[in-house]
């Protein structure tokens, strides 16, 4: 070997020598300052994305700041999907159109300014003004300060879901006076929130450093410092989990789970996400106007096989729209709880789509063909569906794009029969049901309009009793399973790689939004 090197150097002259010297310098510079081991008080978290800015009223700011343990709302989502008080001590319905919010006493922003009713109102009004999502959530709601710790929320119509609405990240509470009138995404000095960690340094989309807020009103954080880094690429996040210098890796790629099982010092934590990957059907299209065809397509899906092939076996098959919502365990027993190939063929026969000699179902000479749109990570799901539906004689043309604009255009033009998307089924279920199933609903892409479903949603909108609401939601779920405007497929899990050095990690269906909690601790 040494001879070979000497020979190369001897025969090559100055060109190779120069090359070797420079390569050596590069290598030396790479290893010159060896990576420092992390301090035990510092928790290093790698995630797919971190904030663009520090203003909760700026796009997604509330989401990232809440996820980092810096921001809080009047209520929050517990891991079981229920909204529970956070900065609010209680929320009670005074009458059909009024909710009373009592604030926790002695809560302060980081600056020491008290979190009183005026400050809460100012925060919500600023968010309403600057953030389209906050404006949508507070649509028709008037906020009035009653006394320093009491606010009244007046709704235009009966709104039984207000406590849930207030748990959403666009409505986190901050010191509006400190941020100013306009979006203020990069001013670290203007940041004034209530969370258990306060931001001390920030580079947009790269790094956020937080330190424990010792004046926090709740359980004191047990980690002194958190360093949150953005690593966009999923394979790089997999490597980050293996490099021994990262405590938590969010949005861990499913394809890396098997590999990480062989890595010492890291565990995989999975929890069903707050949404269900579903096929949205275009009911205006010829074959799918017939409910029997829609039902047949749903029965013809082997959901477990779909999860195994398209998502590395990670995920929970979903038989109905509400199936993965932890607050509604009965929903998992509704709808398409099994794979029933025979029933699918019977339904298609009944609908007049007969199997031809070429294995394709036809009616009046026309083949049963679906254009299935998919985007982003849903391509494998589309391909497995294509294969499964081919078995019952349905031809599927998968039209995939990584560019959502392309999908959006095709959808708006009506050039589609089916579309794969994942929408949430946890939180304000009245709104979620409404946008999915009511005519004109933002996610009712396929033009579903069913009098029975509409009546159930209308009753839900006026029902304040928790038990009655649950019954109504399960009825809506049953009806949606019968009419099949969407075909639920599976709940994609939130996967997080957590170091065995870390204790107190709390799995949450909205993991990104509730990643950092006060219970996180690094073992000594």
């Amino acid at each position, binding site marked *: 070997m040494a001879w070979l090197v000497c020979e190369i150097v001897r025969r090559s002259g100055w060109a190779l020598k120069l*090359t070797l010297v420079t390569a050596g310098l590069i290598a030396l*510079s790479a290893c010159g300052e060896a990576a420092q081991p992390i301090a035990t008080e510092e928790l290093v978290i790698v995630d797919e994305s971190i904030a663009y800015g520090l203003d909760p009223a700026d796009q997604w700011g509330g989401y990232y700041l809440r996820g980092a343990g810096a921001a809080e709302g009047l209520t929050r989502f517990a891991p079981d999907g229920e909204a529970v008080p956070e900065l609010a001590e209680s929320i009670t319905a005074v009458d059909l159109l009024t909710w009373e919010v009592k604030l926790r006493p002695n809560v302060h922003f980081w600056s020491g300014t008290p979190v009183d009713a005026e400050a809460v109102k100012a925060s919500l009004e600023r968010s309403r003004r600057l953030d389209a999502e906050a404006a949508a959530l507070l649509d028709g709601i008037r906020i009035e300060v009653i006394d320093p710790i009491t606010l009244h929320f007046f709704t235009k119509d009966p709104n039984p879901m207000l406590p849930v609405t207030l748990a959403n990240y666009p409505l986190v509470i901050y010191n509006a006076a400190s941020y100013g009138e306009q*979006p203020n995404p990069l001013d670290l000095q203007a940041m004034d929130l209530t969370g258990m960690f306060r931001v001390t340094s920030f580079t947009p989309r790269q790094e956020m450093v937080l330190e424990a807020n010792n004046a926090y009103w709740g359980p004191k954080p047990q980690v002194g410092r958190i360093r949150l880094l953005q690593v966009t690429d999923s394979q790089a996040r997999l490597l*980050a989990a293996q490099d021994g210098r990262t405590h938590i890796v969010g949005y861990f790629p499913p394809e890396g789970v098997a590999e990480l099982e062989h890595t010492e010092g890291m565990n995989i934590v999975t929890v069903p996400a707050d949404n269900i990957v579903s096929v949205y059907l275009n009911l205006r299209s010829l074959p799918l106007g017939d409910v029997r065809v829609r039902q047949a397509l749903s029965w013809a899906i082997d959901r477990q096989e779909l999860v195994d092939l398209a998502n590395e076996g990670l995920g929970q098959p979903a038989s109905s729209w509400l199936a993965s919502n932890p607050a509604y365990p009965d929903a998992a027993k509704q709808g398409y709880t099994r794979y029933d190939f025979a029933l699918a063929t019977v339904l298609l026969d009944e609908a007049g789509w007969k199997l031809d000699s070429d294995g394709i179902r036809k009616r009046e000479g026309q083949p049963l063909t679906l254009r299935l749109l998919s985007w982003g990570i849903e391509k494998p799901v589309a391909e497995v569906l294509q294969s499964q539906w081919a078995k019952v004689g349905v031809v599927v043309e998968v039209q995939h794009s990584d560019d959502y604009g392309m999908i959006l255009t095709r959808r708006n033009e009506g050039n589609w029969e089916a579309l794969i998307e994942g929408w949430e089924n946890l939180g304000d279920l009245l709104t979620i049901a409404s946008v999915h199933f009511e005519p004109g609903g*933002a996610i009712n892409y396929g033009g579903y309009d069913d009098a029975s479903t509409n009546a159930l949603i209308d009753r839900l909108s006026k029902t304040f009793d928790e038990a009655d609401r649950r019954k109504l939601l399960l009825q809506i779920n049953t009806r949606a399973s019968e009419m099949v405007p969407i075909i639920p497929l599976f709940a994609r899990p939130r996967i997080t790689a957590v170091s065995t050095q870390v204790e107190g990690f709390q799995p949450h269906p909205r993991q990104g939004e509730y990643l950092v909690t006060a219970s996180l601790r690094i073992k000594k």
Partner: protein
Amino acid sequence: MALGRYLLSRLASSLYVLLGTSLLMFILMRLAPGDPIDIMFGRTHSGPGLGLAREERLGEIREELGLDKPLLAQYIIWLGRVTQLDFGVSFRTHRPVAVELISRLPATVVLAIFAFLIQALLAVGFGILSAMQANGWLDHSIRLVAIVCTATPIFLLGLLLLYLFGVRLRWVSISAPISFRQVILPALTLGVVTAPQTMRVLRASLLEEFSRPYMIAARAKGLSERTLLRRHALPNAILPTVTLLGLSFGSLLGGSVIIEALFSWPGIGKYVVDSIYVRDYPVIQGYVLVTTVFVMTVNLLVDFLYTVLDPRIRL
């Protein structure tokens, strides 16, 4: 005086190029399917608003961003602002585009310079070596490695380097904040993948020079191979290589999406691709202008370099 006239004429033609490029990009982006308001504020992401943002609010946003105006009016307004170095405000981040681009340019430039140096070094070093040992085992080995490097997907090479130096050897940390040291691996990946093409061009040019009669005569006079290379062959053979390197540098300054994503390098490439996905028109237009200026500047520098390398060339 001649140089001044030349610079003036280049400047004038650059203005036409910039105008044409910006107009073309302006039209193409608006012809592309997908509406930025619909994508960013409407119904595309799973958020608590669930696309509830009311149509009238979306209309207001459209008006605020000037997207309700006719296309020509939008272009003229944008052009008027650009002449005052105001590239507008990003739809997505609400920050001035100039600030967004400037904040990412240093990282892009640093990566481009390092990758360029590695590329140039490898290409020139191994190109000369390969030509000097033409058809020998060293030449065959270098060309084989070059083919392997060219055929290796850049993502795979980057991933392998990250695994080797980040996970196995632990020389770099994947979860480290961005630092000067962190540039080595992405630059090495880019340099290794881009070097072989230039190397092969240099090798071919050198071999052509070596076979010319004046080289045979020089050899017959007893000049050493090193002298022949340095004084005669290389100065004549280097021009195509310089052209290629110049083009490559211009392209590197445009950012590298895959490498930036893989190494979490905060450059301009990934940012712009994300902006394209959400149709963030001001960012895309600003980016196109900036990269066009870069490419034109590099081309100008290459033209000047020609005159230094070959005194027969006059501007």
